[in-house]
């Protein structure tokens, strides 16, 4: 439905969005994942019509949006830090878009009640927005964006400013809301866990470009490059070489389906699920650090040349100083050519 073809946004010499292609289909939730400053907010603003694109094309169901001003696009945008109107109460904020659409008073009131119910804020209708907690403000912003029944919902770091318990709760709520309304949605975040939990498809952005696009599981299993693997919290990358009989790593020879070609230097990243404690494992090492993470323990194992991290249930995790064996799943060994 939404189709972006090679969109470029330049501010003077700086290029914020550098040739993005992106589709959002009916009822699909796409997460744009990237570090701050990668151009993801600019991209959202361009789609909303608040920021003209320098070159490229943005279309909705085939209609070019270049000449459609933001107030005619009927795209809901939930702003980072919400941008609620401080001079209006909760209901006044939610009602705003309906007033702009010249919807009658009675119908407006009904819709406001409906949407506030949807986000669970019925009791706060008459409250000033300044006095609300972060989570409540977030819901008002969501209700305001939803009230006008937008064709597309865009959320810009909607959980960014919230405490952890609120984040998890609201994440679930947004997920179920998107499922129920079947709205196509674009969700911008720098947090990969958020993106994985919510999106059907992930688009990883870096410096204004798309690095990788695909289903959440595919992105996690096979990050496109070392940078993406690092951004997802894997790593660190280590130097290795592809020999004729396998991958030569600091932990020994690993069997790997080397599509990279033989006899060349590569960088290797181990996905967190690749390393397992295994008494019979080929890699031996000593535990140098044990971090408590609730039901799990995160162990740092000194293997002689390189340290490895491994997660294991906390209850029967070995202690610092214990020597352990590790096995490495070939499937979790990510091999990247040295640029």
């Amino acid at each position, binding site marked *: 439905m939404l189709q972006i073809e090679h969109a470029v946004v330049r501010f003077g010499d700086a290029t914020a969005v550098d040739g993005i292609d992106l589709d959002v289909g009916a009822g699909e939730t796409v997460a744009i994942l990237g570090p701050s400053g990668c151009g993801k907010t600019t991209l959202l*603003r361009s789609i909303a019509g608040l920021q003209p694109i320098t070159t490229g094309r943005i279309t909705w169901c085939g209609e070019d949006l270049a000449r459609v001003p933001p107030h005619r696009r009927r795209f809901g945008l939930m702003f980072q830090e919400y941008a609620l109107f*401080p001079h209006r109460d909760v209901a006044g904020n939610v009602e705003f878009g309906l007033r702009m659409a010249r919807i009658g008073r009675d119908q407006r009131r009904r819709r406001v009640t409906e949407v506030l119910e949807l986000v669970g804020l019925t009791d706060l209708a008459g409250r000033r927005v300044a006095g609300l907690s972060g989570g409540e403000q977030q819901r008002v912003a969501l209700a305001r964006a939803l009230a*006008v029944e937008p064709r597309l919902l865009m959320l810009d770091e909607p959980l960014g400013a919230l405490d952890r318990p609120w984040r998890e709760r609201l994440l679930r709520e947004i997920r179920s809301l998107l499922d129920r309304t079947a709205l196509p949605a674009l969700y911008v975040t720098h947090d990969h866990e958020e993106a994985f939990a919510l999106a059907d498809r992930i688009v990883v952005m870096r410096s204004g470009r798309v690095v990788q696009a695909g289903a959440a599981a595919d992105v996690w299993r096979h990050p496109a490059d070392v940078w993406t693997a690092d951004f997802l919290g894997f790593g660190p990358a280590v130097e290795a070489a592809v020999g004729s009989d396998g991958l030569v790593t600091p932990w020994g020879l690993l069997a790997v389906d080397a599509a990279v070609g033989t006899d060349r230097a590569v960088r290797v990243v181990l996905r967190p699920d690749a390393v397992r404690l295994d008494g019979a494992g080929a890699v031996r090492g000593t535990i140098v650090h044990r971090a408590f993470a609730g039901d799990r323990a995160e162990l740092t194992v000194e293997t002689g040349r390189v340290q490895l991290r491994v997660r294991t249930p906390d209850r029967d995790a070995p202690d610092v100083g214990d020597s352990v064996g590790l096995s490495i799943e070939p499937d979790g060994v990510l091999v990247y050519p040295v640029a």
Partner: protein
Amino acid sequence: MTRVWRAVRVVIPIGFLGVFFVWPVVAIIARSLTADALRHVLADHGLRHVAWFTLWQAAIATGLTLVVGLPAAYVVARYQFWGKRLFRAFVTVPFVLPTVVVATAFLVLFRPGGALSFLGWQRGVGPLLVAEVFFNVAVIVRTVGGFWSYLDPRRADAARVLGASRARAFREVTLPALGPSIAAAASIVFLFTFTAFGLVLLISDPAHSTLEVEIYRQANELLDFPTAAAIALVQIVAVFSLLLVLARMQERRAVAQRLVAARDTSRRARGWERLVVGGVLGATAVFLGGPLLVLALESLRLGGSWSLASYRALGSSTATDTLYVPAWQALRNSLEFAALAATIAVVVGGLASVVIASRPGRATRAMDTFLMLPLGTSAVTVGLGFLVALDRWPVDLRAKAVLVPLAQAVVAIPFVIRAVVPALRSIDPRLRDAARALGAPPSRVWREVDLPIAMRAFLVGFGFAAAVSLGEFGATLFVARPESPTIPIAISRFLARPGELNIGQAMAMSTVLMVVTGAVVLAIEHVQVRQIGEL
């Protein structure tokens, strides 16, 4: 429609100030270049003496104002105490009081038989300096105190934790951070005292006169317009050099300072601090409240006993030979002029503010600077400019009463802009984006977002403009017709006449004006506090 509106909001402010400010100033420059007036003025020994006095009295008054104002700024910024809001409003009152009211108060205080007559000062430099300090303390308390209250106290705490004593932490951490704001406030005070007119004219003696007063004397007493214009030109050059320095300093001040919300930075005084806070508050209150209280009380006395005779004389319907009209007529004139001047100032200044706040860039900065010019130009210059420029221009406006509110509006416009622009700028641009994304067409965004949020600022601007107009003396003195005096003009005429009842009427009128202005200021303060409380 939008395009017309865009043009209108640029053309009206620039056109208005072009006709009523730039053109008069150009006329002054033209006049001063005729008849070699400028050369004579620059060579005149008497005028050099005047210039020197203008400079040193401003320097001393500025120093004294810092001494009096900084302790109060500290207390207001760092401590919580009962009636703090009231105190802040109260400190501001002298600053917005008309100069004639302040002059009357100090003349009464120092006159023979007055509360401070034992100093034997009467008219002269002593009372002038005290009055200037009285007038400008608010600048220090509000600007430095305001900045101070947003300064993160944890920096000083960090210095203490690292082993600095209280005094050392202040000297090494707080003072450097405050420095630029102190310098900026001091230069504003210097500017005000350097261009002081009403106070000098009414309080000082003829031997100690400033450039401003000299302009007035040349124009109104000696009718030597070229010389008056030449002095005005010298004054303009001096003031703008000063303003340039000031602008530089403000740019430096804009360098990142970690600021926090004011409520986190002040606390209740503990132990010996209570003595300091109480002492500073008490002394400041006496210094600022005393003269006004004495003025109000003395206005109720005549010939050594309590009497309402002065007020009754104000209400009398007969014209006196001092005013040519009944005194109440002056009150009516003042109110009418204030309403008109404030309306003009809010319309012109409001439009200008919208432009200045809308886009950052060289063009808007230039416009901002242009519209602030009247602030740096003395009221006397504005008045003189009106006299020399508007007597031949398409219609001869000189005989029209409308000149008074026009001149007052020119003086008041910068105040409106200063009140409205920050409010408009403080509006998160994403609010406008949000309104547009929710379906508001561009023409409606302003009405739905900017206007309601900045409404209070417009009200504050109107209040400021009205207060400025009510008390305006320098420009009005030039352009008011003899038979339609404003209150400040009437007061100055009463002060110039001998006789118990004349000074009594001056005191009574000053008291009335003080109450009216005070009410306006309290209303402004109320609106502002609520605004910050809500947003």
